[in-house]
């Protein structure tokens, strides 16, 4: 199976690889997937408390090239968005942008899950109620 140029580009030059200080109140961390399934994503957001805008986003991913590309793309999209805007990111947007084949759609679902998990972590830390998330099929 050939990878799309965009997947190859994100894999070769991943954006925003790294770790934010998860102890900070304005940092939300989402860890999704499982080693046995071959995919684990950790996505973090750092929110500017004055504006509610995501000032920084970082990821680390264990997985195939499409999983790495999906999380790399997600961090790019997150930066500059408000938390509410970030919630609107849909996995199918990632599928479209990266040209993921059907067998790799679960990578995009995982990235969306990671975004939502990071936002929820941020919300809980800051006294907001946890969002009920709809279950997407992996």
């Amino acid at each position, binding site marked *: 199976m050939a990878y799309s140029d965009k997947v*190859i580009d994100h894999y070769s030059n991943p954006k925003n690889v790294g*770790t934010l200080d998860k102890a900070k109140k304005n940092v939300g961390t989402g860890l999704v997937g499982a080693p*046995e399934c*071959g995919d684990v*994503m950790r996505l973090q957001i750092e929110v500017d408390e004055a504006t509610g805008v995501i000032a920084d986003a970082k990821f680390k991913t*264990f997985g195939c090239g499409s999983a790495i590309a999906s999380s790399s793309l997600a961090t790019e999209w997150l930066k500059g968005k408000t938390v509410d805007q970030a919630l609107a990111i849909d996995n199918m947007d990632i599928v479209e942008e990266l040209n993921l084949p059907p067998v790799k759609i679960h990578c995009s679902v995982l990235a969306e899950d990671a975004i939502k998990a990071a936002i929820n972590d941020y919300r809980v830390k800051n006294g907001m109620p946890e969002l009920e998330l709809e279950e997407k099929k992996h």
Partner: protein
Amino acid sequence: MELKLPIYLDNNATTPMDPRVLEAMLPYFVEKFGNAASRNHSFGWVAEEAVDYAREQVAKLINADPKEIIFTSGATESDNLALKGVFEMYASKGNHIITATTEHKAVLDTCKHIEKMGGQVTYLEVNPEGLIDLKELENAITDKTILIAIMYGNNEIGVIQPVREISAIARKHGVLFFTDATQAVGKIPVDVQADGIDLMAFSGHKMYGPKGVGALYVRRKNPRVKVTAQMDGGGHERGMRSGTMNVPGIVGLGKACEICMNEMEAEAKRLSVMRDRLENGLMELEEAYVNGSKEHRLPHVSNISFKYVEGEGLMMGFNKNIALSSGSACTSASLEPSYVLKALGLGDDLAHSSLRFGLGRFTTDEQIDYTINAIKDTVLKLREMSPLWEMFKEGIDLDTIEWAHH
């Protein structure tokens, strides 16, 4: 020597054809096109002579009699013919077959089919080295057992089963012994007499011969073994395998066997030195594990798990220049990681992180050096990107984390 790219290290999947094999085959497409079964003219005689000669070349490599070689379309057909053919032929004696969980799918799926036809199959587990337990094998034999089917060398991990001990047990209990030796024939000495093999499957394209041709060895003496044909037709190959002989393919298989016969010993030595160098180079990485027995192993095979990186993601780092395969689920159609690695007791995470190296006749030292460096660089790069590696480095036990399974 100059480095030649891309590098092919997937020789367990298939081997490139040796140019000498192609040369031997070429006259049999256009010029000498006859049907080996045409008994009444020179075209047929020429073809028949070529097939007879190839049969001798094949037999010689495995120390068999030429009459014991049945030509087929490949190892999958040979596996089917051996298992189903014995099951049908010996139905009056029993219906029980013993095999192992690490066999090739061509054996396992055929066994599943036999179960549907009323057969009983015992699937022996293997130890963490990938070897079956001989006591367990002997204990599994019942008065209904007709066949033991254990492979010679494994396609994923290269582990060589104790074939002589297995055949001794089979002999002692009057049970036939079939081995799928697709990965072993032409790579290491395989001797059907000394090894006590009653039936054996192997294939041309795993030993620098053409695809679409293989053979089944069927013992004719002590004991005389017969299999029921699985295709009806002209009664070729002593009635065990009908179908017009694939003359160019058979000529190619014969030539491939002859080359292996002459060069196998030196080649195995050369490849095992290279394989060990590759393995030692890669094992300098932290948290790298060789899968399967290192002691009982084909000389050209290595299977290594690089913990905390995923196999497909890893291969993407160098697959433009290096071809190999992984036990990762993402590389298979089934979305399940390698059942062979799981049978060794590896967790799914380690199975996902494995690479299989299959060296071959045309692998060079320069290619091995390049591969060591490329894989090391990619593993290090991906570990920097891996949340699991970070947790491991922080001393977090990954087993204590509640992962969201899906």
